[in-house]
């Protein structure tokens, strides 16, 4: 006979070995890294973020001087200007109307024609260029200091990516647990397994094995993200970024602790894979709701709602990391949030341990949680009779 630890480890090892052999894990890792890379590289490639870009079209030598003066000051205005020339005012206007230029400096540098959508900063830079071209020496723009809780755009971006990855990982790996349980149940291999190990050993091994796999995949994705970010110059690999990866890993563990056992129970209640969606619907809704509510925390990490949500176990694994990365949370808040999530997870594990063994052997039709709970009370399937260990 084998001890509990050996049983759990053997089950976990099987989960890891068998799933690593499946191509789907490899594919999902690549897809996630791909999305991450796209998220890091695309925004700047598409012109989001960074200085506002603008094209200035100039008519005649004076106008060209204005445009060049504007360009000389572009950094102070946080814009990036390109200059082109047009033969006459009509041609310049046409370019602006056609969307090919944002601002036209008309002949003699006496008037501007600007597009509706032209960036204010671009216009301001051209105005300043005009003043400079006339020899005026206006004071340089005042230096700007951003105030706030430190949630710069970058931090917010990292928090967003962290949120999306945590969401995908919790949902995906939760589903893996549920499908794994149904697979054992629907193929009846579970009866063979339970004739030699206890239900809670099987449950623990499955959850730990799949959880370790999820953690390893996250680590890989995190490392790939940091490397791609650094290589593309889109990410300053600061302590903040490394901390963010750490926060995601830690909260994946906590979130998985909470959700995985619930997914296992949901899987144990139904006889076939076809009923997986129905069985896991409440959990999916919980995760999706937490995900969307986390966007509020992304906008305003210090809001009351975000604070409350970061203490409630179902949403804490997504809201708290967002608050930690994008904003800040007091030490006591972090401790309380972790504590409550662990407590919630512990309670769910206790429920799962009781219900799982009773549910997983009931093949044939769907069983209700209540019926299984009662049956488990009468017949502790954890094997009270299994004495002599």
């Amino acid at each position: 006979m084998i001890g509990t630890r050996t049983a759990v480890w053997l089950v976990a090892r099987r989960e890891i070995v068998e799933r690593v052999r499946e191509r789907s894990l490899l594919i999902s890792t690549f897809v996630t890294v791909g999305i991450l890379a796209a998220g890091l590289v695309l925004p700047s490639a598409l012109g989001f973020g960074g200085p506002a870009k603008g094209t200035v079209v100039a008519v005649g030598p004076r106008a060209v001087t204005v445009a060049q003066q504007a360009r000389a000051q572009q950094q102070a205005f946080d814009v990036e200007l390109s200059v082109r020339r047009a033969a006459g005012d009509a041609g310049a206007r046409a370019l602006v109307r056609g969307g090919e230029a944002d601002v036209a400096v008309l002949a003699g540098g006496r008037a501007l024609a600007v597009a509706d959508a032209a960036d204010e900063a671009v216009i301001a830079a051209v105005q300043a260029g005009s003043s400079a071209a006339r020899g005026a020496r206006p004071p340089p723009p005042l230096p700007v200091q951003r105030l706030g809780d430190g949630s710069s755009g970058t931090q917010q971006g990292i928090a967003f990516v962290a949120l999306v990855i945590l969401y995908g990982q919790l949902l995906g790996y939760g589903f893996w647990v549920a499908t794994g349980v149904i697979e054992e149940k629907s193929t009846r291999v579970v009866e063979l397994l339970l004739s030699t190990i206890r239900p809670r050993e099987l449950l623990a091994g499955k959850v730990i094995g799949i959880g370790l796999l999820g953690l390893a995949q996250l680590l890989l994705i995190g490392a790939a993200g940091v490397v791609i970010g650094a290589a593309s110059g889109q990410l300053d690999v600061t302590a903040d970024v490394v901390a963010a990866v750490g926060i995601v890993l830690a909260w994946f563990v906590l979130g998985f602790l909470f959700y995985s056992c619930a997914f296992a129970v949901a899987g144990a209640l139904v006889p076939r894979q076809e009923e997986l969606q129905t069985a896991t619907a409440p959990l999916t809704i919980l995760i999706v709701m937490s995900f969307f509510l986390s966007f509020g925390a992304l906008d305003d990490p210090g809001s009351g709602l975000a604070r409350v949500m970061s203490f409630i176990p179902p949403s804490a694994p997504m809201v708290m990391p967002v608050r930690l990365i994008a904003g800040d949370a007091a030490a006591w808040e972090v401790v309380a949030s972790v504590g409550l999530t662990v407590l919630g997870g512990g309670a769910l594990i206790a429920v799962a341990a009781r219900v799982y063994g009773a549910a997983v052997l009931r093949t044939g039709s769907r069983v209700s949680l209540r019926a299984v709970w009662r049956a488990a009370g009468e017949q502790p399937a954890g094997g009270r009779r299994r004495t002599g260990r």
Partner: protein
Amino acid sequence: MLELDDLRRRYGDTVALDGLSFTVGPGQLFGFVGPNGAGKTTAMRIVLGVLQPDGGEVRWRGRPVDAAARARFGYMPEERGLYPKMRVADQLVHLARLHGLAAGHARAATELWLERLGLTGVAGRRTETLSLGNQQRAQLGAALVHEPELLVLDEPFSGLDPVGVDVLSEVLRERAREGVPVVFSSHQLELVERLCDAVAIVRSGRVVASGTVAELRARRAGRRWRVDVDGAPAGWLGAVPGATAVGRDDGTVVVELAGDADEQALLDAARRAGRVRRFAPQEPTLADLFREVVA
């Protein structure tokens, strides 16, 4: 020795086991027969600890069965099941290790059984890609790979082709020769009769007859004789005390004699009635016995 002692189990209002008891000795091939729903599967699941009884006890070698004892049992559930995507050899190694074999030992035992069951060629294939017959063999391998001290097999012969039946019969006989008690359920009564040292017939959760097939026959109230008499007048049997005709076909009468009736008196009466062409005891088959006690 395996003892099932007064096992009781209900599912809601349905009584599955109603004081079921029987004993299987070392090296005994024990057939467990009964109509569908008689409680065979429930009893086996209880022996394996997959199900808890409401009452009664299962003892192995004189002591209540515990997890350590169960780890040394081999089980083939009625509803077959292995991991469909797992490779056959990996699957057996995994199960052997769950039953307590060390890694090296588990691999060696897996190789041995795959060889014996003719599965070496498909050892590296996913279980779901095997033919049904080979999946059955793999399932048997799963029950045997950890060298169990007791085998409990629920309908092991169902779905096997004649060659598979022979292979399985031989394996079971060999296990029994090694001293392993083998309990299996089956609806193929001729097979059970041919293979088993002893049988238990269950009905509605109780054992209604058990023992060796010879014992079951001996326990019957009467003995049967087939008598074939040329030119016998109707009603010739009426003169023989304790004799009743229980069947008739093709001029042959099947006569049942009450416990103390003398078959010589029957023979004398037959000779008086006409030319006796045939006078032979009719041994009931297990199927006959089964029908009598289950009806």
